[in-house]
């Protein structure tokens, strides 16, 4: 497998995970850059080019809500999980736990 193919597989693997990771961290309001740092601090590196479009997509799906606020001297867009997202999150977590359990059995 070429390096490029490997990278593509990794990207595919991470794509679904990132949605759950982002939703899980937005129970408290965050702006993009602070969210990147929060995820990074917990070991998940995500680049800006991936995160910002994803935040917009999740917002258009009604899972997040956002608002612009000016803090210090700069406007920032703050994101927070919506009621719909909050209702969905436990089901996504349960699904994730199931996937991990199955995968652990498969990869043993």
């Amino acid at each position, binding site marked *: 497998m070429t390096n490029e193919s490997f990278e593509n597989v990794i990207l595919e693997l991470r794509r679904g995970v990132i949605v759950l990771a982002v939703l899980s961290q937005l129970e408290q309001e965050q*702006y*993009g*850059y602070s969210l990147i740092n929060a995820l990074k601090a917990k070991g998940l590196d995500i*680049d*800006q*080019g*991936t995160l*910002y*479009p994803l935040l*917009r997509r999740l917002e258009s799906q009604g899972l997040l809500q956002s608002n*612009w606020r000016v803090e210090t001297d*700069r*406007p*920032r*867009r703050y994101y927070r999980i919506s009621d719909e997202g909050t209702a969905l999150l436990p089901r996504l977590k349960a699904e994730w736990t199931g996937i991990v359990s199955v995968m652990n059995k498969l990869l043993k």
Partner: protein
Amino acid sequence: MSLIDTYVSEVGRRLHQKGRADIEAEIRSALQDLLDERSRAAGKPVDDELTLAVLKEYGDPEKVAACYQAERYLIGPRLYPTFEKVVFAVLPITVILALVSLCFSLSGLGVTADQVLKVVIATIGNLIFSVIVTIGSITFIFAILERTVPELGTKTAKTQEWDPHSLLRIAPPDSLRTGGLVAELVFTILALLVFNSVPFRNIMNLGYQTNGGWWIGFISNNAAIAWSQSLLTPAFFRVFLTLEFVWGLNILLVIILLSLGRWHTWARWATIGVKALEVGLAIAILAGPTFVRVTTASLKAAGFPDPATGTAMVKVFTRSFQGGVGVAIFFASLEIVRQLIRLWRPHVPARGA
């Protein structure tokens, strides 16, 4: 304008107008956050060098803009299979209409070689134009559907659940395509009737009309024709007689097949045999001394005015005739290949009944 402004504007100009300002503001804010952090880490104020490093890290404006766009298609994957079906259904009709129009244009008596050439060239030109316009129009309609009825494909996918009963409509490998066989039967009988409805040697003639001008026609006993000569040699008629016999065999085979209602191995081999004979005879027609040699000099020697036109018409006729025989060879060969595949892989089901 600062480097950040230029960068943001480079991303923005690649975005759809809807939401552009919002995305630009967010990218600007993210870049400034990143710049602040890098400045703190480097222990120096923001300068061009630092800004360029941050912009490089953020990425090529084209790629950044692409991240905000859903994949864009002229015709998306949901509608494409339908688009393909429509194109493949309409294009043959366009070609057939062009051929019919050519036949009508050529059927008029008294056309000169120049006129024949003009008609053929015009038909080819019109055909190319029609094909382009047809494909373009279908593409245009589907592109509009893709944009105006975005839920069309989704709705189709949701409402038209796959029904396993559709498997029953896939024909078993030995079932007959009755329509195709009936069409073959009708056309073969028609060909035999047409070719035998005139004196055998008058199948194709070059004639000179009483009012002047050359003529190429199917039947020579036309009052307006002062002189005529068969364009086909006795050698051709010998081969053609054998071909008619093979057509007779084919008719017999098709009738037996229709009465049996399904393919049998012997019928496939018989079809291969008949088609191989057809191909062989057609090749013999192409390779053999099929056409009477008509030259400008021979027509001039016979005392006809404007012999060049007569020769040019003969040239157009022989080319068309050879083209027709070539098409017949192609389709007969295709049938041979199809039957061989069926004999080789008898258990693979065929689509359609």
